[in-house]
């Protein structure tokens, strides 16, 4: 067992035990002294000698009692005091031993039997002293030597061989007593050490428990900010480790920056920067674990620059890790050395503190980053809705989103997009987002309306994405833009275009009418050259009128001003009629129309007049682009949950470079086409708008040189209106 640091404590305890035994030993010695005087009263020893001796014994006893009382009055001992008391005790003991030692010198009777009695009494006293004085070997050795040696010498120097033998026995007795005293001393010392150790452990355990309780009280206190918690923790560390200066440092390269510091006046300010290589923390970094020096000047790092600069004797430090990266250190230090090296438990404790600080810092940083991100997202003018792919319930909405639809965060958490997008049924919505989940589409852009809690409809443009972050559950993210303003501007633009177009139409009507009257001969015969020019003018006024009419049509459809008259329509009959209506135009172009539709009795929900406009457009386009004596196929067939109506020609096909913008306004494959083939370039745009009003979609496929198929898909189930 190595408890050298406990020597002084053990010694103090031994002294305490010595003093504890004083009353018993004094009582015993006084009794024995009285008996001695009584026995020897009849001997040859003068009575005055005996009385003087007894008085001396009493005085020595009194002095020792006085010492004992003084000792007992003292409650707390420092180490030096304990040593003084030990010395005093030994002096007292020596005098006590002397009282017995002097007997063979001054109170020695002539009668041999009395001499033997002396031997018994002194030997008995010495044997008794062994138990009381063995706590300190000095005390017992002095006592035995002083009390028994004179007797032994007296016997040895006697002429009587019996007494000589007794003298030898007395000497042997001293040695034997010393040996047993030594053994007793060893046992009591071990015992004391054990008691002290268990006391120490208990104290340490209590200190640890206290430290942990305080630690918990600090970390769990919701009233404290992180900075306050850290300062409380530094104070706790100083208390626990019995040190004076607590620091949290940030170490970056060679720069050692003090982030937090607590200590006596005169310590550096937070923010002070030091050379990392000149701090004890470099050792903490080298070992990458809690590191301590309890007495630097006596350690292997006595020449450390930090010691030279600051004379810090004690240091305990632990690295702080923030997000698995070394951030700096938590360290405590003091200009005073610690008596004992830092214990394993202290290392564990500082490591715990450092871990907590690291975690808090990481959390605060990520919380700060997250809160910045969230604040930004919250404040974004566009509305952000995130919803779960399975339940479709919203799990995040930003401030803008809540304001747009007028529901609170809590209310929205139990709602789905269908609850605020009245244009969709759950099934329609599920169908719409299916390509995103299956990965066929990366994003979806659609226009719809959002219904505010107060019932007001808000036109919106939605950009919907299916996001699958690593290690996180997939989610839908919808960026929703309020289109109210844009719609208003669009409406203004539409109104403007519509007004302008209308205003254009009136003079055009006059021009067109006048020219028609002239070319029709109503104003008389004209030269052929003039007629030719007027024919050109006439043809172009017709084109202009067509264009103006198409623009007005398109504006009306797009602005929703055009009312649709939905009815259930027999698709086959409808297609047959469209073929009949366009046969005239087709035969002008020497093209034949083939009706291939086999699905009799299919009913669609449509505005027949408008949809006929679409058919007319597709058929006239097909006729225009068909070769001489070509044919056009009109067909219909089922595609999943919709029906597809297609018009196929076998002409030149749509050139690749125009395929992309075919449904945009004013798109014609060849700008010379408009002259050759007529048309405003708005026909397909109008057709697209009409089909979309039927909740359908329009498209085409084309192989240049082989022909094109234009089709539109209509839902089989009736759309919501």
């Amino acid at each position, binding site marked *: 067992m190595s408890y050298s640091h406990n020597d002084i404590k053990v010694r103090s305890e031994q002294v305490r035990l010595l003093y504890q035994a004083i009353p018993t030993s004094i009582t015993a010695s006084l009794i024995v002294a009285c008996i001695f005087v009584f026995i020897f009263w009849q001997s040859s020893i003068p009575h005055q000698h005996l009385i003087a001796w007894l008085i001396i014994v009493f005085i020595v006893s009194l002095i020792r009692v006085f010492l004992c009382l003084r000792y007992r009055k003292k409650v707390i001992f420092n180490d030096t005091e304990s040593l003084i008391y030990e010395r005093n005790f030994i002096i007292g003991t020596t005098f006590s031993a002397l009282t017995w030692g002097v007997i063979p010198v001054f109170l020695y009777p002539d009668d041999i039997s009395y001499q033997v009695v002396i031997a018994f009494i002194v030997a008995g006293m010495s044997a008794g002293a062994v138990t009381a004085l063995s706590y300190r070997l000095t005390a017992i050795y002095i006592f035995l030597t002083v009390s028994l040696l004179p007797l032994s010498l007296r016997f040895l120097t006697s002429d009587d061989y019996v007494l000589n033998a007794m003298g030898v026995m007395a000497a042997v007795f001293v040695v034997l007593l010393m040996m047993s005293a030594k053994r007793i001393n060893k046992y009591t010392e071990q015992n004391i050490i054990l008691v002290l150790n268990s006391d120490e452990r208990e104290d340490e355990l209590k200190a640890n428990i206290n430290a942990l309780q305080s630690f918990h009280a600090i970390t769990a206190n919701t009233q404290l900010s992180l900075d306050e918690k850290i300062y409380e923790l530094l104070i706790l560390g100083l208390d626990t480790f019995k040190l004076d200066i607590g620091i949290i440092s940030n170490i970056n390269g060679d720069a050692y920056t003090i982030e937090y510091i607590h200590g006596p006046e005169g310590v550096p300010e937070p923010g002070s920067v030091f050379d990392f290589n000149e701090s004890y923390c470099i050792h903490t970094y080298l070992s990458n674990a809690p590191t301590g020096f309890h007495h630097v000047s006596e350690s292997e790092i006595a020449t450390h620059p930090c010691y030279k600069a600051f004379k810090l004797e004690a240091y305990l430090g632990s690295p702080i890790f923030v997000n698995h990266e070394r951030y700096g250190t938590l360290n405590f230090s003091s200009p005073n050395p610690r008596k004992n090296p830092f214990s394993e438990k202290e290392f564990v404790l500082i490591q715990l503190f450092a871990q907590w600080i690291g975690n808090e810092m990481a959390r605060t940083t990520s919380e700060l980053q997250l809160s910045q991100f969230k604040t930004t997202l919250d404040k974004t003018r566009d509305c952000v809705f995130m919803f779960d792919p399975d339940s479709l319930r919203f799990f995040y909405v930003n401030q803008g989103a809540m304001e747009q639809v007028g529901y609170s965060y809590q209310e929205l958490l139990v709602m789905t997009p269908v609850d605020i997008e009245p244009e969709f049924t759950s099934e329609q919505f599920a169908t719409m987002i299916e390509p995103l989940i299956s990965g066929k589409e990366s994003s979806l852009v659609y226009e719809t309306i959002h219904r505010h809690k107060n019932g007001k409809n808000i036109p919106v443009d939605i950009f919907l994405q299916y996001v699958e972050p690593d290690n996180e559950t997939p989610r839908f993210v919808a960026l929703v833009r309020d289109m109210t303003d844009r719609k208003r501007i669009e409406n203004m633009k539409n109104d403007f275009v519509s007004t302008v177009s*209308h205003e254009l*139409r*009136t*003079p*055009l*009507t*006059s021009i*067109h*009418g*006048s020219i*028609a*009257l002239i070319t*029709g001969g*109503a*104003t008389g015969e004209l030269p052929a050259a003039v007629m030719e020019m007027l024919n050109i003018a006439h043809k172009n006024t017709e084109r202009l*009128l067509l264009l103006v009419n198409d623009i007005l049509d398109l504006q*009306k459809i797009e602005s929703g001003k*055009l*009312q649709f*008259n939905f009815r259930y329509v027999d698709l086959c009959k409808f297609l047959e009629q469209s073929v009949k209506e366009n046969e005239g135009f087709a035969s002008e172009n020497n093209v034949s129309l083939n009706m291939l539709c086999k699905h009799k009795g299919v009913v669609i929900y449509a505005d027949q*007049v408008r949809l006929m406009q679409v058919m007319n457009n597709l058929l006239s386009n097909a006729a225009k682009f068909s070769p001489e004596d070509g044919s056009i196929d009109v067909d219909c067939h089922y595609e999943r949950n919709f029906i597809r109506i297609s018009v196929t020609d076998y002409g030149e096909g749509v050139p690749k470079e125009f395929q992309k913008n075919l449904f945009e306004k004013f798109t014609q494959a060849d700008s010379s086409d408009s002259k050759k083939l007529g048309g405003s370039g708005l026909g397909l745009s109008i057709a697209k708008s009409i089909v979309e009003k039927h909740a359908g979609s329009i498209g085409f496929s084309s192989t240049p040189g082989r022909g094109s198929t234009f089709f539109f898909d209509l839902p089989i189930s009736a759309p919501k209106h």
Partner: protein
Amino acid sequence: MEEFTRILYVEDEPDIQTVAQIALESVGGFQVKVCSSGEEALENARDFNPQLLLLDVMMPGMDGPSTLTALKKIPELSNTPAIFMTAKVQPQEVAQLLTYGAIDVIAKPFDPMTLAETIRKIWHKNK
């Protein structure tokens, strides 16, 4: 049966007036009384005693429908057929216009060479 010759034509746009007048008089052989507004039509209608009222729809002041309603209140004209001329030819709009008591709607721009023939057909069909 009385021959169909007299048309009261109400149109605010002078150029279109001219074109229509030529189309109806020179091409169609009608006798046309042209009025530039509903008010003017109300002043002249009874004297002219038209066999058909031909009305533009969009006019400043009294528009076509209100002019027709007012003209119909003149006892002599209460049974006179009327035709609207308008650029707006959506089916719903046509239906709306017919509710004012017109017998048909002719789309603008009209073909001046066939206008008279079209009107004559409509008039006879209505008889």
